[in-house]
């Protein structure tokens, strides 16, 4: 048995390190493959999962490191660096960090989501994102992932 932390445990460590405003971990009663198919399909699914997001443009291909552009419903654009691996997704812009992780668990899936703001001089923007990402957003996010995975 490997002693290395699985992706969900790993995301939990990053959430602690980033003092993340949003971190949620839940068991989804659907197979891992179906759940992760939703999470990993960033350009098609992320706008369904994040309410203020209009589009998330990611270059096609299997590269584990990508540049992406998020377009908010407000028109605000933000460039992200993306790290994608099986059960693991980490996205970072100048202002915010987002992450998702999943592992199979007893026929279902343990799923985790993280949202954090980065230290920045742009306090009002940070406050806005903090508000958008905080609190109950985590539970709602996992709920939407579950809905989207059921549709597959």
């Amino acid at each position: 048995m490997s002693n290395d932390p699985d992706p969900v445990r790993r995301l939990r460590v990053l959430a602690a390190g980033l003092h993340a405003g949003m971190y949620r971990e839940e068991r989804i009663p659907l197979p891992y493959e179906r759940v992760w198919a939703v999470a990993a399909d960033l350009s098609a699914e992320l706008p369904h999962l994040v309410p203020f997001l209009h589009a998330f443009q990611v270059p096609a291909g299997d590269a584990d490191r990508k540049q992406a552009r998020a377009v908010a419903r407000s028109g605000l654009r933000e460039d992200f660096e993306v790290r994608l691996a099986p059960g693991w997704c980490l996205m970072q812009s100048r202002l915010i960090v987002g992450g998702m992780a999943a592992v199979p668990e007893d026929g279902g899936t343990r799923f985790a989501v993280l949202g954090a703001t980065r230290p920045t001089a742009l306090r009002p923007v940070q406050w806005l994102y903090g508000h958008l990402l905080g609190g109950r957003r985590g539970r709602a996010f996992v709920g939407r992932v579950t809905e989207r995975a059921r549709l597959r």
Partner: protein
Amino acid sequence: MDIQGDSAEPWETAAALVRAAQGGDALAMDELLTLVTPYVTWLCRPIAPHDVPDAVQDSLLAVFKGLRTLRDPLAFYGWVRTVTVREAVRVARRTAVEEPADPADLARLGELRPGTDGELPSDVRDVLARLPVQHRAVLVLRELEGLDEAAVAELLGVPTGTVKSRLHRARSSFRKAWSR
């Protein structure tokens, strides 16, 4: 962020990542996590042999939660050792029944090694399994990490005399088992 140069010493590579991670760079933090996990695992295995995944996870959580408080990024590994030993001892103490450590790990305990083949007799393993967790921690720091008694005492927050007596008792337990 990609700082993993071939020529850089491990602590220099870590220090650059620590600085970036302290500034809230999640990608640097992720790389730092990859870099430090094997070391944390290596420390946890002999101290908490029955709970390695939990000891590793709790140590990593404590390390990254406290990362912002680390003043000197070059001191990262020493600080990780302090935090990890504390967490591993705490996790090992939670377990009611203590299990023998992996012989391969025990064989690494420097001068306690019985022969060149690295295999420990089962009675020696039994002796080690019966050692209190704190004694195991002392053995790891002294024999695996090569710290002197004063450094071990400071790290575990006990007087040097306590370290000496634990070390003495741990070693004599082994000698008795071997000489039988």
